[in-house]
């Protein structure tokens, strides 16, 4: 007979506090976030909070906040927003620190990452069939739409 989580894990309230802290970071990443205040809010000592957070998410709260900011920076860069505006929009004060951190994590500068993504989006708009496995495109009748040319005609193996 399976047991429910509440009987097997009586300390589930600890999870709820850690999850609430994570959700707070998810929604307030663009504001100055004081991790001490989050620990206080969750009724943890700072060190206990960091330990629990890392055990749950594999990152310290600070590392997680950085990851959330960079993820959101990528979403904004994809919209074509200037790098400086993105930097401030995600809660950084300094463009040079933002760019250095972005490059350390993604291996590209924000501007070159943005250029590559905008180029990919433009190709996707012009030649969407290049991004769709042909079997699906054929099933849906999309390959008959001559507005969407594949860059190369398919070549069948002569077997």
């Amino acid at each position, binding site marked *: 007979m399976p047991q429910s*989580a509440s009987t097997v894990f009586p300390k589930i309230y600890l999870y*709820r506090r850690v999850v609430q802290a994570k959700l707070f970071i998810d929604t307030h990443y663009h504001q100055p976030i004081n991790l001490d205040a989050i620990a206080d809010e969750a009724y943890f000592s700072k060190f206990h909070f960091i330990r629990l957070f890392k055990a749950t998410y594999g990152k310290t709260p600070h590392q997680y906040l950085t990851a959330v900011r960079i993820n959101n920076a990528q979403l904004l860069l994809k919209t074509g927003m200037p790098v400086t505006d993105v930097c401030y929009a995600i809660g950084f004060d300094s463009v040079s620190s933002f760019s250095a951190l972005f490059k350390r994590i993604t291996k590209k500068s924000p501007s070159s990452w943005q250029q590559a993504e905008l180029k990919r989006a433009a190709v*996707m708009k012009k030649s969407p069939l290049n991004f769709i496995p042909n079997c*699906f495109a054929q099933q849906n009748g999309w390959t008959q739409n001559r507005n969407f040319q594949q860059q190369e005609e398919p070549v069948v193996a002569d077997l």
Partner: protein
Amino acid sequence: MITKMNHVSIFVLNQESAYDFYVNRLGFKVHTDASMGPGMRWLTVCPPEQPGLEISLMAINEGMMFKEDAAEQMRALVSKSTFGFGVFECNDLLATYEELKAKGVEFTKKPTKEFYGFEALFKDDSGNWFSLGEKAK
């Protein structure tokens, strides 16, 4: 020798709503979002740590792989939660359960220790259900 799977399809009732569910609630990343004309959209998402597996959110529309009667039958079956499309994995099931529940995801089974592992079941916005398991530690 087949080495891996890189595309899988999930049939959904509404792609816009599915986008919100998979991206904003589950936290998946959009891989490809290509418009093929009015009502025709190729939308794929990936679990955050599995960028090589594109999950195609396929609209069940007449003319999109389905004839009229087949589309109607498929929509009815999906909305009745007929299909279980797979097993997702997370690092911490209790934390993920609490987070997804807070985001409004409907669970049909709470995290439960079974003989085969620790799992919960949830449904997407269309009615497709999934198992959610915890990575072995």
